[in-house]
């Protein structure tokens, strides 16, 4: 006691906002290992997102529709521009491309079962098509990626649509990645790679570069498949106005626009957090590009990146998208981040809600793994049921909002149904700030 009298008072320990605890741990990790951090999932920073928009609902000037009684349709047709056999989805939410390799065969099967049960599509990924996923997906989109792992014309003809992947929101400009732990004998065989290597896929297509080549490539794919199948072009959100314009010019039937919140199986942390645009900031200019070309609703737009609920879906549609796609949310619906796994997550140095070492292949939920024991924990039938439940809830939520706005189809939602909560959202979407009729730049800056 007497000592303290002589010691000058100390301030409490204070953490730096710049060198926060995560940043410090990352510097320590980098110094110890000499290699950048690779992880799964999407960006974790707070970004302008659909939460920054609200619906206005009906009022005296606009009447609502009766919930449950008056129809609010949800169907969407994709690929009406050139394809002889467009795709019909009962609900405008599809399961995004995630490879067998990144995901277990059980997870792929569950996604197929769930999507099929509600009348929507699933998508292959950077690793080819498995017979199981073809068998369990009534509508299957086949990705055509730079790596062309497992690409073959028989599967191309078996697919219901073809998605030319130019980029992905988590890493626009980056190629796929699958670390050695997940290159099991079956995955290695499908990809024609040695087992156990750290696979780094190409980031550019091997036989075309630029929009003029893309046009020729799309025509080749149509020639190979008799002009039957819709051809999608998937881009990460970076220059959406130009990318959408160029994809339309190249002959795409459908454009998939994936924002930076979009999940990934394995990517450098620095890439996930620092490259690309939040999806909220990309939709308006993508839609603008379609409108300027007279192609809105003729070339369909699918958006993804952090879609979690029927509200997110309804907002994306109101901004002008034709459908949305989900990746991360589907994995959570399957059981990823489950509190029941807390003990096992603890052994991996993490907690439910923060698990992102999907690249390691040790997923206790059996989803992002190729370990037979772990994968067998996932029951594809039960998993399919959970996916179907979740997709149904998303659809019903979007319908509830649409009816409240007086819309008899989800596609009748429009920008005028929305307000922005923040200046950022208003500037990015040109949706007026709540309580005003103004967005930044409206009357010139």
């Amino acid at each position, binding site marked *: 006691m007497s000592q303290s009298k002589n010691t000058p008072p100390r301030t409490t320990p204070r953490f730096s906002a710049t060198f926060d605890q995560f940043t410090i741990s990352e510097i320590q990790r980098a110094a110890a290992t000499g290699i950048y951090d690779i992880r799964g999932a999407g960006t974790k920073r707070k970004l302008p997102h659909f939460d920054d928009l609200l619906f206005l609902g009906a009022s005296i000037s606009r009447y609502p529709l009766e919930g449950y009684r008056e129809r609010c349709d949800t169907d969407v047709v994709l690929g009406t521009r050139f394809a002889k056999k467009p795709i019909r989805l009962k609900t405008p939410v599809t399961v995004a491309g995630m490879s067998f390799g990144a995901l277990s065969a059980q997870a792929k099967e569950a996604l197929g079962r769930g999507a099929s049960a509600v009348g929507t599509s699933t998508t292959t990924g950077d690793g080819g098509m498995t017979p199981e996923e073809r068998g369990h997906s009534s509508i299957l989109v086949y990705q055509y990626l730079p790596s062309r792992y497992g690409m073959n014309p028989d599967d191309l003809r078996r697919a219901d649509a073809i998605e030319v992947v130019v980029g992905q929101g988590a890493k626009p400009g980056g190629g796929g990645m699958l670390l050695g732990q997940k290159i099991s004998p079956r995955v290695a065989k499908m990809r*024609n*790679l040695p087992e156990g*290597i750290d696979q780094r896929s190409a980031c550019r297509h091997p*036989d075309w570069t630029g929009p003029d080549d893309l046009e020729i490539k799309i025509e080749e794919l149509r020639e190979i498949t*008799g002009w039957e199948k819709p051809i999608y072009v998937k881009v990460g959100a970076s220059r959406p106005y130009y990318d959408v314009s160029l994809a339309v010019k190249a002959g795409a039937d459908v454009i998939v626009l994936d924002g930076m919140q979009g999940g990934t199986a394995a990517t450098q942390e620095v890439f996930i957090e620092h490259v690309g645009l939040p999806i909220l900031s990309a939709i308006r200019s993508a839609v603008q590009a379609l409108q300027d070309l007279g192609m809105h609703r003729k070339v369909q737009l699918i958006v993804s990146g952090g879609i979690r609920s029927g509200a997110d879906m309804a907002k994306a549609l109101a901004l002008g998208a034709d459908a949305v796609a989900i990746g991360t949310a589907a994995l959570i619906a399957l059981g990823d981040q489950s509190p029941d796994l807390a003990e096992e997550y603890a052994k991996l140095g993490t907690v439910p809600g923060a698990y992102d070492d999907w690249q390691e292949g040790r997923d206790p939920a059996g989803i992002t793994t190729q370990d037979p024991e772990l994968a067998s924990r996932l029951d594809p039938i039960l998993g399919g049921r959970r996916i179907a439940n979740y997709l149904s809830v998303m659809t019903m939520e979007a319908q509830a909002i649409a009816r409240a706005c007086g819309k008899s189809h989800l596609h009748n939602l429009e920008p005028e149904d929305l307000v922005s909560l923040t200046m950022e959202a208003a500037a990015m979407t040109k949706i007026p700030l709540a309580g005003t009729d103004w967005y930044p730049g409206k009357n010139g800056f």
Partner: protein
Amino acid sequence: MSATLSNHQAIDLRESTIRELNAVLQSEDVTGSWLVSHPEGRHSIAVGLTAPIDIIIDGQAGYYAGGMNQHANLVIKGNAGPGVAENMMSGSVRIEGNASMAAGATAHGGLLVIEGDAGARCGISMKGVNIVVRGSVGHMSAFMAQSGNLVVCGDAGDALGDSLYEARIFVRGTVKSLGADCEEKDMSAEDLQILRGLLEEAGITEYSAEHFRCYGSARRLYNFHVDNAAAY
């Protein structure tokens, strides 16, 4: 049309569209030999074929001639544009002239023979195909090549076999430079036998297998390691 080609079924691309051509060649009951005249650099000639038919393309082909071929045997009498025989699964494509970039890209099987030279990225990402080039190949050939064999009777450009996996490369002439993780290997008896077989299959008799060198992956980049950081 030359007399030797007279018993072919003929399609003239001045009269038929590419769609009509491919629809005929892809049809389930297609058989025999076909002559495609006046190709005039059109793209996607004879793509997605599945039947063991013989096709002569009497002139220059544009992009992706013979793309994703299965079982068919194509001869291109002139030059071929980018991505000739891309993702071929089986059958053969022979180019009597030169081939542009990315010849045989990602192809899984079959035989691609280029009588002239090939441009950049010949055999890029190849996944099992055999490619024999009588002339030289451009830079970045066999980039990320996964499996199969690339035989170059002339010279190879810069960065040959960059980030190579398990494909083999044989070069008779000079190699301007090797790409990351590609190294010269001792030619084994098995390599020699494969090379002899490929030269013979390609109809190349003037060069002997003994005069080629063999290149493959040093396998140093197969797993991430701090000491290889400069190569990532």
